[in-house]
Each structure stands twice: as C-alpha cells, then as structure tokens.
C-alpha cells in the first residue's frame, strides 16, 4: 500500500496553474462573447464547458492533488467555470432575444393579400325585410301569422266583404286554379291569413301577416305578378283608428327612423270601413320635398310616400269570421314589402329582387 505522493508539487500540475485556469477562462469568455448566433454559442459551450474542454479537464486533475491543495484548486476552477456559465447564460439570453426578433421580422407577410377563399353567402332582403318588420311587431307583443298561398276563394274574397260582384274583384286581377269552379285562387293579398286568424282564435288578436301574394300584373320596373305584402290585424275591446295611427307611426319610426310618421287619406277597401290610405313622411328629404335644391327623387317632391292601405275592420268581416262585433272592434293595415324595401334602399327596378343575381343579394348580407 503506497501513501500519498508527498513529492507531488501542486504547482507542477500544469492545467491547474492559476495562469492556465485564467487563460482557459478568458478564452471561454472570449469565445462566448464572439458567438454571433445560437449555433456559435452552442459550439462555444461545447468547446469551453464540454467534457473535453480545458476547464473540464483541469477539474478532473483536482482529484490527483494532495488534500491540502485540492481546496484552493477547486475554488479556482469553480470560480472560472461559474464565470463561464454565467457568461453563457447571459449570451444565450441575448442571442435568443435577437433570434426571436429576427424570426418575427423574417416571418412578416403581406397582410393585404386576399382572404376570400370561401365565397360569402347572404339572405334575400325580402326575407330579412319581412323579419325586420315581424320583429318590430313582436316587440310590441304581436304574433306572426301565416297561411297558404293557394287559398280558398271564400277566404280570399267573400269572408273579406269582397262578394262575387264586388268591383274590387276586378281591380285585383286574380290567378285562378283549374278548374275555376274549384274556387281556389293564388291569394291576392295576405288578408285571408287575417280571416283564418279570426276564424280560429278569440280576441284579443294582434297579428302581423307577411307573405307572398299574386296578381296578374305585367312584369316591369314597378309591378310584378308575384310580390310580398305585410298586413296587420288588431281585434280588441275599444280599438279605434287612433290605435291604428299610433301603431303605424310606431312602425314607420322603427323602420325608417325617429320622426318619420304617417298621414291618412280617405280611401276605399271592402275589408275596412272607414278606410284610409297611409302616406309616410319621406325619410330622405324628411318631408321637405326638396333635397339639395332639387325635388327629392324618392318622393318626387311630394314630401310623402304612398305606403299602403288601412282602416277599421268592417263589421261585416267580423261577422263572417265569427267575431262578436258588438264587443270588439279592430283595425287592419297592409303594405308591400317589396315596395317598402325599394324606397328604403333606393332600388330602381323591382325585378332585381327576383333575378337572383348574387351581386344584388350579397350587398345586403345576412340582415337589413
């Protein structure tokens, strides 16, 4: 058994000489500082802290020293390695930040590139327009009633006080189904829905009836054999024309903006008595009739736009539909949805609504 080599002189172990350790440390710090990217830094880490690096090799020599020398050498190496690791970490942080910054710059894209990979859909303004109107009335507690478009003649005419010889039956040129003595028509208005409602429900009744209607009109920029109407019906105790006016004023303001109200002119509809035509304050010139010094195009300088018809439900209609006319009164109104949208949106030609050109419809999106 041999004892420690007392002849061994620590200063004679070259790698552990203070100047050698300092030189290795300085070389490492220099390499770290010189690293310009993370790869070079990685190489510097391997070169100067790896298993075969001078400081690692020197560290391995410590065990060979006599105990009294180990502490000092250990301290020296430890300090050097600590300084190197610290420098590495600091440099790593700097280079990583630089790298990330560069990456973000390099990944810059042209955000103005088109993004329309999938085409946009849209709902038809007549659909969304009818919904807008329905929502205005639903907000007042009304309900939306609907019915078939091929309708019994009795419901489309007779029940509404349009008897077989009523002149209004020729005013509304009607599509009849074959054979005509089947007494079925393409409904000429949505009023049969009102009749159906009165026939099947007990008052109070507050319904709005949007839907498709038919008349044998020529097809041109302002007429169509197929068009859309919304009608309203209120049956309750104590209903008067004043409630009709209030409801239509509210409807007009909701649809066209605050301050847009209506006026009544005496008219004639078999369904109602008294009857009135409803005009709407022109929402473009706000009733002035003049816009920028020229006659307003929307209302043709009138300040008013013809909107629809209305009146107090004729007691004869109440009788045919089983409503107690002694106890209840009612009002009804109706207007064209197509026409309403035409002036609300400044459409020039009604036929645009029925052509199905996606450029027209997509302009409106999914709601009005």
């Amino acid at each position, binding site marked *: 058994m041999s004892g420690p080599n007392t002849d061994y002189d620590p200063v004679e172990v070259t790698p552990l000489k203070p100047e050698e350790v300092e030189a290795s440390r300085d070389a490492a710090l220099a390499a770290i500082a010189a690293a310009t990217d993370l790869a070079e830094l990685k190489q510097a880490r391997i070169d100067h802290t790896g298993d075969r690096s001078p400081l690692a090799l020197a560290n391995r020599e410590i065990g060979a020293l006599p105990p009294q020398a180990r502490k000092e050498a250990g301290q020296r190496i430890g300090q050097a390695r600590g300084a190197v690791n610290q420098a590495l970490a600091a440099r790593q942080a700097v280079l990583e930040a630089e790298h990330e910054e560069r990456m973000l710059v390099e990944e810059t894209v042209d955000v103005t590139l088109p993004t329309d990979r999938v085409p946009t859909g849209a709902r038809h303004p007549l659909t969304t327009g009818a919904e807008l109107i329905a929502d205005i009335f639903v907000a007042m507690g009304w*309900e*939306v009633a609907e019915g078939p478009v091929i309708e019994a003649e009795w419901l489309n005419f007779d029940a509404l006080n349009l008897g077989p010889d009523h002149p209004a039956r020729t005013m509304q040129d009607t599509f009849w189904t074959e054979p005509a003595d089947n007494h079925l028509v393409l409904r000429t208005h949505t009023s049969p829905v009102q009749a159906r409602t009165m026939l099947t429900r007990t008052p109070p009744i507050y319904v709005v009836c949007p839907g498709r209607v038919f008349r044998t009109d020529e097809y041109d920029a302002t007429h169509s054999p197929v068009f859309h109407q919304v009608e309203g019906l209120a049956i309750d105790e104590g209903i008067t024309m004043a409630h009709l*006016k209030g409801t239509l004023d509210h409807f007009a303001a909701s649809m066209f903006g605050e301050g847009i109200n209506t006026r009544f002119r005496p008219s004639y509809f078999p369904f109602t008595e*008294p009857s009135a035509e409803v005009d709407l304050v022109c929402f473009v010139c706000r009733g002035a009739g003049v816009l920028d010094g020229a006659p307003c195009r929307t209302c043709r300088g009138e300040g008013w736009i013809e909107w629809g018809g209305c009146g107090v439900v004729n007691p004869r209609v109440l009788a045919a539909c089983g409503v107690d006319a002694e106890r209840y009164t009612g009002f009804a109104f109706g207007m064209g949805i197509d026409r309403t949208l035409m002036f609300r949106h400044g459409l020039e030609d009604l036929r645009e609504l029925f052509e199905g050109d996606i450029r027209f419809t997509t302009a409106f999106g999914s709601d009005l």
Partner: protein
Amino acid sequence: MKAPVSWIREYVDLPDDATTEDLTARLTALGLKLEAIEKPGDQITGPLVVGKVLTMEPEPQKNGKTINWCTVDVGAANGTGEPQGIVCGAHNFKPGDLVVVILPGGILPGNFEISARKTYGHLSAGMICSARELGLGEDHDGIIVLPADAGVPGDSAFPVLGLDDEVIEFEINPDRAYALSLRGVAREAALAYDAPYRDPAERSVPEPNGAGYPVEIDDPVGCPVFVARKVTGFDPAAPSPDWMVRRLTQAGMRPISLAVDVTNYVMLEIGRPIHGYDADKLSGPIRVRRAAAGERLTTLDGTDRVLSPEDLVVTDDSGIIGLGGVMGGETTEMSATTTAVLVEAAHWDATSMFRTGRRHRLTSEAGKRNERGVDPVVTQAAADRVVELLTTYGGGTADPGVTVVGIPPQQAPIEMAYDLPERVTGMPIDAATTVANLEAVGCELDKHDTTVVATPPPWRPDLNDPFDLVEEVARIVGYDQVPSVLPREAAGRGLTREQRLRRRVGRTLAGAGCVEVISFPFVGDAAFDALGLPADDVLRTTVRLANPLSSEEPSYTTTLLPGLLKAAARNIGRGASGVSLFETGTVAFPVDRGPAPIYGVDWRPTDAELAKLLEAIPEQPLHLAVVLSGERERAGWWGDGREAGWSDAIGIVRRLGTELGVDIEVVSAARAPWHPGRCARVLVDGAELGHAGELHPKVCQAFGLPPRSAAVEIDLDLLMRRARDVTPGPEFSTYPLAKEDVALVVDASVTTAAVESALREGAGDLLESIRLFDLFTGEQVGEGRKSLAFALRFRAADRTLTEEETAAARDAAVALAAERTGAVQR
C-alpha cells in the same frame, strides 16, 4: 275622372284665390285622390294673341301649293300697332276673321320657337295657329277661327282658348261613383270650402204624359226607371259648340258629333249615362226584359254577341236593339243622317250591369258609371238637359211627349248611435258634429235621443251601414285629426318555433356560403323535360292555373329547382365563376277532395264547414333547394380552388341536420334530375326528406350550367318537424383520449356508412367518435377493392383507459366490421 277647374267653378262658388293646388289638397283630404293636374297651356309661352285678319293674298307656288300672304291686326301686342305680315298655308278663313296668332319670341308645344323668318319671298313674322299646333286636339284641317265675339285684336288668347283652364284628374274609389261627374266633384268642392253649391241636376222638367214613346218594363228590378224623350227635325250636320268640344276634350273624351257629344256631355255633367236611338229606325214600343238564352245582338262596336238570360236587353218590334245600360245595338244606331233622336235615360241595377260588362268584356264610360251606381232620381233631369242641348245646337224640336216608367229605388235608412264616430275613430266627435256632417253629405236625418236615423241621398248607394256613415263624418272632421295612440301591449308569445327554425336554416345556409334567391313559382313541361323527369314522375302532377301568365308555365311549381337552376345559369352567364344559391318556398301538390265551398258571409261557417273548406286546399309543403355550381372555393395565392360537387350538396344537408339536431341518413339513390351514380336519398327516421348530389350531365347542359353542378331539394317542413326541441346539456369526459387508427380493405361496393356503423357498434360504449380520414384504391388493395382508414377515438367517463381496454375495443370493432362487411385489416 278629369274635371276642368272652370267647370267645377260653374256649380260652386269657390273663393277667387283658391288655387288648384289648394283645391286638390282639400279634395284629396276628403277622399277624391289627385292623380294629376293638367295645365294645357303650360307648353306654350306667349305672346299668343287674338288677331284679326285684314288682308289675305293667295300666292300659288311652284310646288303646287298655294300659300296666303296675310296681314293681321294684333293690336299693340307686337309693340308697334302695325299689322303683322304672316304667311299661312291654311285656307279655312277669310279677311275679317278672328284667329290665334303666336308672335316671334313665343314657344309652341314641342319646344317650337317662333321667330320672324324669310319664307316664300316674304318675311313671315309669326304664325296663325291650328288646334293641333297648340296641343288642343288632332284637328288639323285648318287654323282656329274664333267666334266674332271672342275678343279684340291683341287680347291674350290663353283665356279665349281655355289654355289657362287647369284640368284635375282624380282617381275615384269604387264607393264614390257620384264623383264620376262634375255634379259630384263640385259637391265635394263645396264641402271642402263650405261654399254655396248649385246642383246641375236640379231643373224643372216637364210632367210625364201619355204622349211619349211607349215603353214597358218587364223587369223592374233590373231597370227600375226608364225615361224617354224625343227630338225631331234635328240637323245631323250641326257642329257641337266650341265650349262643349273643349270640355269634352279636357275631360278626355273624343268629340264625335253633336248628338253623341251631347249625351257624353250630360253624362259628365250629371253622371247619368244616356243612350240615343235613331227614332226613325225604331218600330213599336220599347220593352226592357232579360234576354232569352241563345238570343244574339250585334252591338255598336260591330261585335255579334250571344246573350245570357242574366243580360238586360232593350227591344222593340224588330227584336233586341240594345244591351241595356251597357251598349246599344247596330240597327238603331244614330248616324250622319239621323234627324230624330229618342233619348233614353234609364236607371239600371248595378250588379246586373257589372255582370253583363264582365261577361261580354265590355268597358265603357257609361258602363263604368252604371255598374258602380248612379243617382236613380236624376233620369228626367238628364233627359231634359239632353233635349235642351240638342234643340239649342241642332235646331230640332222637343217632342211634347214625356215617357217616365217606374219609380226610383229608395235608400234604406240607417240607424247610428251618435257616439259611434267617436268610438270608431278615436277622434273627439260630438253629436252636433255628427249631425252637421251627415247633413253636409246630403243625408236626411231623424234625430232620436241616443241615435240618429239617416237616409242617405240618392246619389250615395254606397252608404248602407253605420260604419259607412262614420267614414262620412270622419272625413269631414279630417283624417289628420286622428290621434296617434298605441294600443295596449299585447301578450304575444314571440315567434313560433317554426318561424325561428326557418331563420336558423337561412342563416346556416348563408353561413355555408349560399346566397338566397326568390323565384316565381310557375312551371311548365319545358322545365320538367330539362330536369329529365320521366313522363309519370309525381312532380309532373301539378296544380294548374286557369289563367297563367304564360302558357309555357301553366302550373304552380312542384319543385324549386327550375327557378334556382335558371338563376344559377344567369349568374354564370353574367360572369360568375361559381355560384351557390338557395331558395325556401312553398311548392304545391293537387289534392282531389272536391271544390272549396263558398259559404255565406252573414255568420261564421261551422267548424265542420271550415274543415271541409280547408281540406280542399292543395298540399303546400315548404321546400328548400340548393344549387352549387362551378367554383366552390376560389383559387388564390393559397393554392388551387375547388369546384362544387356532389359531396358539397350532401354536406349541406348534413350541416342542416347538425344545426337542427336531426340525424340525417344518407343512402344512394337514382332520381332525376340527379346523376344516377351520384345521388343521395336523404332520410330522417326512415322518412324521405329529399335528395342531394351531382346533377345529371344532361341537366347541367339543358340549364347551361357548368358540368358537375350539384343540387339539393328537401322538404323543409319535415326537417323542421323533426328538429330537436330542447337540447339536453351535453355530458363529456375529461379523462385522457385514446387514439386508434384502423385501415380496412373492403369490396368497392361496400358503403362507408356500413363499415362505419359496424365499427361503431363493435367498438361499444368506450368509443367517443369515429371518422373516415382516408380513402384509397389501387393496385395495393386489389381490383374492385378499396381501403378505408378510420380514426377511432376512445374515452371512458370515469377512468383513464388502459392500453388493453382500448385495444380490445378496437379489435371488437374490426371483428364486427369483418363479419358484417368482409373487411380485412391492412
């Protein structure tokens, strides 16, 4: 109805400063709606003056024409007082005549500017005007020669010609037939200004006597009153007076001859249509009766008509001589040689007039009035007025005989509570106002404590109910006085479930890139042929229209596809590279359950009657159709685009199913108009919802669509009925997911759905989801075989699954797939 303002003013003392605009505004407020105001002179700018022809020298020209070189006294209108030299091509005047002259600087209709110009060797300083040049009519036989008392040279010609007389055109509602006359319009004007009114029908008429033309009425319901007067020795060549011609022209009627013009004039004035017979062509007494079936009459318009037993006819010994109240017959027509006129002023039943007019497709000014209801009391006055005008201007003699047969129908009195106008209109209307306004419209009143009994005037056959009286009271108070009050808040339940679902479907489709269209629901064989529907296809059984817009499309449609495919083609034709469209709309299928009954209207039909009526109405399910054509995803910097195809169509149905919580089952099918190998029949709980897939190549071609266009049509009502009502809150596990992918080779004819359902069933409860992620065919899997790669995802609700558990579930899945479909794991 066109009414010259000067004519209105003849019967009512309007304030001098009442403008036509103010008058029409007030009349509109009363219910006579303004259609237009015509200002006949507004195309002419002065100086347009009365001139007196001093000299005229005919000068023949080389071109064969002869012109007149005239000097015309235009007073001081030309600034000099000297005669004006004018060249005129007309010859219907002579020196001393008063004519109408437009001087240089004036403008005639058509923006025709007048200047002094050299013509035919003279300096012609102005123009002597014809009626046509002034826009006063088509008469271009010569220039206008004014009556000698028309004015003095230099006077403005505007008032002389009535060019400053504005004409108001009204739109008359059916209930206000009385306003189809100046008598009625003026009455409303008097009401509008509370001004004195003179009734043109109020005149003293000779007493009826037995010396008149014999008339018998067989049908006093159809013809309650018949008045006949006769004028003899009448000059058929006598011209109508200028004022009458002008008024008829202003009212939109064409002057024809004195006899015809007088009857038209009196109709406009009093509202009572008049018929004139050539009295020399009549033989024997006049009788009014209903026609016998099969009787015929050639009417004035030259049409030979077969009459109906409902038609009222006028006869004499020769047979039928007129369709009463609608149109006279040819045999007794007045002509250019008529010297004796029998004037008929009869009252006819309005309903009968309406039916006869409609049956024979006859519309006339007389018919329009007779079918809406004419004052039955004014027959004598109207006939007397005709006699007066004929004898005054035609030089004849009034025959002393006056025939009046029958009595005018009476208006039924109406009882109304005084407060009804207030209760109905919401306006504060007291009893005094109610009484005053009813009297103002001509009602005779019998006043009780709480009610008033009103007998409407004879010219108001439209007043039958208390509510009719309310309208009369209210329109005079003024509709602008109606307060604006919201009714009480109604207790509605919001949109129905179906209404909400429809919105949801629309939004889902728009979200899927589809654009909604609305098409006309008319269809014909051409569209069915283009869809390739077999002859016995159920879609060809349609509800047909008796009077379709076009004989090419005589039916209400049974499918939304034709309209949709046409719209898609229109978009493609306009340059769209791809188009995705949808439509929701009703289609119709006939039912054969008899005609829809017509019930009375005095009371509500019974529930059973109502049910009978409703069941006669055709089935009208709501359909949804989609067409996907051309580019579905665009090409771009991101890469290639993608054309629409069968899978997009089926995908849309599945997407709707997911949105509405409905399990959609897809099976292959062959159905026109789809490609027989690329068509899916879509089912819900075994019920057919519709079809989806690629369209048949011939259909694409027929509609002009890109190849491989795809389409869907489903019964939306059915889908919505099956929609999940209340969605239960979902439960899901948060334990780790176990993934297993399996690739199975099956026969090419085995459907993915079959393999998937076997895998799903075999995997058991631990399976969370299954999805096909790859489909592969080729040499490696063998001829007639395909490889389906599924991603299986397992998870337990209560624990982390072990590898053994997962593997066992996977193996069980594969085993069942193998058993059911012959699948072999790769």
